[in-house]
């Protein structure tokens, strides 16, 4: 008896396919993953019913050019007629509930099966499915088209249990049906499957995943199989790796291999770990499965405890994922710790390549920091050096908390061979502040630009008194720049002055600079803001008593000359410190130069007059 019925979906199928391809799936190529997933689910279901059952998946490619046909067959549980009606009904329901229902994902096996099958319409104008349920009943055929029409009939012959899906490529999708492409894709999706996936094409057949390694399920075994693990990583992840760390979580339900990237990565780079859920590839770009700091590795992860999103391409961000993520992070950290213990040179190589990532991790984890601190690179007044070398100098490590502060004091500090570390780059000042907590017998101290004076020699009060008049003239001249003068002795002697700026005065400088350039309205707003900044916003101009010019300026105060000289020294210090000058300061510079030329010429004339 043959029964064939022509039906039409009571749904807008093309709209649904639109939604699937535009919102749910990242590319048409996922149809193959969906078919594999359906096959895997079917085999899993049959294995549960018949323990010891050996599943298999066969894929056959026939035809040429733009008219290739693909058949995907599994020997899983199969579908009864009732099952078919159920998944069709599911599709109907989710289409009526609209896009959100589709994207939220069905959780029942049959629902997922149906939606997964629909993805094939992205590459084929017809889907034919033959199926025989392991529970008995007649073999069934379902033929569907993207316009929503389909037929269901019982077959006369009895097939063996399982499901076959036939697709014929549309011209646009032909390349998804090429032997080589399918072969690679099947390997990606099914590399970890515990039963054979066979590809038949052009009269040749071979098992795609014949080399699914045992150590993937027991990452600890990977330690002794270096060459094999690296080769597998290269084939699957497409990079030539040189190092890896096996990962497992406490429950043993998630594990994998973290391959160390052979090149430095940008902090913002998208993470792209490859994750297998219940041994089927679920994501090639899982970002949230490892902690953020783990950007120096690309991982192969397998898990059976996380919940996929509707697109099956990511995981729901929930407590469970957070737990898995932190456990994988711990495992990675432990791997690095073991490396520090047993193969420090391997770790050193890794740190040099991924310093930023290592610093990020060290900030979060004191023990880890203690372990690797010696190899972390820092910029200092002794050049770019590793922290271990800097510590061996046996001094207090001074550090700044911004690039700006470092710039202000670095030449003075260098001249006095003071060791100062630039803490202005990401994580560096935190690491410096934490160092004494993590490592014994080391002192670090934050240096503020206005503290550079520590390494200045003080001028005794009796001597300072001699300069009293000159300093008063200096202060009143510098008043309008909110700057005050101080006499100190420092090296190098040929540096006449040094300008330092506190945090507040730095904000004020920026504010005034903007105010000068801005519209009237905004200038007045900025004006009202600057009144709110504390009067601590004074900068300091240090006058170097070891410098002959300064000596002369200080010992011969002159109501006319001294203020001008001070102003000139002030703008000169700004230039040396690479500060952007405001209008007032630029004017001082221009006028001052002109005045000095004038005086010089006049002095010349006077001397000629005397002759």
């Amino acid at each position, binding site marked *: 008896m043959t029964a064939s019925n022509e039906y039409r979906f009571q749904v807008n199928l093309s709209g649904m396919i639109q939604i699937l391809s535009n919102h749910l799936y990242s590319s048409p190529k996922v149809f193959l993953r969906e078919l594999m997933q359906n096959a895997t689910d079917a085999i899993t279901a049959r294995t549960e019913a018949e323990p010891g059952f050996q599943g298999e998946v066969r894929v056959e490619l026939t035809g040429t050019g733009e008219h290739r046909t693909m058949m995907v067959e599994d020997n899983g549980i199969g579908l009864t007629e009732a099952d078919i009606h159920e998944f069709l009904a599911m599709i109907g329901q989710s289409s009526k509930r609209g896009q959100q229902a589709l994207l939220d994902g069905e959780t029942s096996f049959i629902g997922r099966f149906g939606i997964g099958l629909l993805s094939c319409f992205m590459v084929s104008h017809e889907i034919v499915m033959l199926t025989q349920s392991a529970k008995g009943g007649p073999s069934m055929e379902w033929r569907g088209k993207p316009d929503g029409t389909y037929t269901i009939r019982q077959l006369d012959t009895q097939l063996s249990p399982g499901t076959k899906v036939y697709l014929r490529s549309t011209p646009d999708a032909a390349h998804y049906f090429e032997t080589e492409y399918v072969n690679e894709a099947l390997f990606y999706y099914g590399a970890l499957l515990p039963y054979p996936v066979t590809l038949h094409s052009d009269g040749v057949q071979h098992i795609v995943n014949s080399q699914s390694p045992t150590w993937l399920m027991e990452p600890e075994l990977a330690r002794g199989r270096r060459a094999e693990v690296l080769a597998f990583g290269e084939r699957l992840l497409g990079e030539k790796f040189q190092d890896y760390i096996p990962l497992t979580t406490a429950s043993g339900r998630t594990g994998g291999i973290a391959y160390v990237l052979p090149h430095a990565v940008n902090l913002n780079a998208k993470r792209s770990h490859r994750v297998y859920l219940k041994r089927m590839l679920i994501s090639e770009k899982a970002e949230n499965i490892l902690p953020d700091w783990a950007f120096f590795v690309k991982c192969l992860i397998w898990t059976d405890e996380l919940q996929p999103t509707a697109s099956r391409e990511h995981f729901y961000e929930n407590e469970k994922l957070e737990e898995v993520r932190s456990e994988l992070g711990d495992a990675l950290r432990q791997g690095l710790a073991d490396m520090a213990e047993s193969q420090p040179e391997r770790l050193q190589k890794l740190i040099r390549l991924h310093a930023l990532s290592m610093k990020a991790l060290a900030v979060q984890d004191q023990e880890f920091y203690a372990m690797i601190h010696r190899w972390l690179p820092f910029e200092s007044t002794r050049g770019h050096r590793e922290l271990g070398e800097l510590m061996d100098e046996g001094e207090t490590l001074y550090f700044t908390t911004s690039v700006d502060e470092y710039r202000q004091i670095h030449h003075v500090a260098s001249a006095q061979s003071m060791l100062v570390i630039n803490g202005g780059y990401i994580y560096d000042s935190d690491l410096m502040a934490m160092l004494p907590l993590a490592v014994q017998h080391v002192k670090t101290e934050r240096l503020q630009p206005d503290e550079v004076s520590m390494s200045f020699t003080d001028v005794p009060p009796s001597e300072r008194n001699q300069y009293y008049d000159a300093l008063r003239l200096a202060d009143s001249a510098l008043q309008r720049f909110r700057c005050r003068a101080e006499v100190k002795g420092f090296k190098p002697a040929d540096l006449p002055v040094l300008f330092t700026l506190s945090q507040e005065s730095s904000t004020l400088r*920026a504010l005034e600079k903007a105010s000068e350039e801005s519209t009237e309205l*905004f*200038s007045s707003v900025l004006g009202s803001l600057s009144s709110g900044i504390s009067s601590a916003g004074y900068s300091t101009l240090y006058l170097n008593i070891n410098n002959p010019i300064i000596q002369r300026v200080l010992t011969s105060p002159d109501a006319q000359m001294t203020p001008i000289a001070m102003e000139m020294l002030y703008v000169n210090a700004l230039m040396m410190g*690479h500060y*952007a000058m405001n209008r007032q300061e630029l004017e001082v510079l221009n006028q001052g130069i002109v005045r000095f030329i004038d005086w010089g010429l006049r002095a010349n004339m006077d001397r000629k007059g005397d002759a």
Partner: protein
Amino acid sequence: MKTEMDFEDLMDEAYGLPNGTAKLGMLEEAARVADVHGMEEEAYEARSEIVETATFCGYPMKALIAFSWQLGKFDQQPEQYDEETLMWSYKWILGELSSFPEVSRDKMMELLEDFGRRFKSFGYSERSYWYYRFRISMDLGDLEEAGNSYTKFRSMDRDFMSDCEACEQDEIMRYWILVGDDEKVLEAAKPILKGRMSCAEIPHLTLSEILMPLYRLGKMDEADKHQAKGYRMIKGHNDFVQSFAEQLDYLVRTNPAKGIDVLEESLVLAMDHEDPFAKMMFYARAAQLLRRWADESPGYRLRLPASFPYEGDPGDLRKLAEYFAAHAKASAEKYDQRNGNHHVSSMLSEV
């Protein structure tokens, strides 16, 4: 050894960093290098980035300063720069303006008019003007004016310069919170909580704002769910200090132990925060929480950040609570003076 990185290096480095203080430092350095070398277009580019980064990392003052500079340059040479980007950031500036009590009411209104005039001149919809009028009126505690502007902006057409629907919806929700109509708050929050509206900062903000309204309506289970999820989304982000305050407000009442976790994890962000309003709210809620915790867990020593400017004993929670409360009240006073009402201090009535 090269001690100076050049402009391109700095910008490259900055683009490679995630939003945060380090990135901001790089950008400021780049702006400085551009200024010193008189490279105006580069200086402008760096400041565009500063405005955006600072806005989304909790540095409203830095954003305002950089924007002011940009606007002046733009007015001198409008053909040189892209007005859309600049006008878009004008909205961020207006959104943060009220946090600075030094800026008077009149100035705020003047800026709003300037903003409106500019939007008109570029042919953008007036909706943005009324929407920001709505927001600023709320900031000033002027609820009647806010209500008028609310009706007005909803009647106008959206355009590409309008804020996204999720952000607008969040502000509408805030309006009902201020009015004190919790049922309406829930209604306004629905499309966000259902996940139908979202953007970079929504639902992050919403999940904390909704806690107290839910609490008052006795919907604790739902509130707990949003609290956990909301905190997960914002934890450790400098931009959400006010949201931490809202979380504390709720946890004081329902789960002070969890509140203490949130306080210890976020205090380091709040203490150096550039937005005085967010800091005030955080300190106020911290004070309430510490008083409650002193009753529940006497002898507990609060973990304070190393650089926290408090000389007293961190085990004397009542004293510490006083310290936080005093700071919050002093700030509230300033806002009240500027606003000419008790809108802000009434938010802190329980402190």
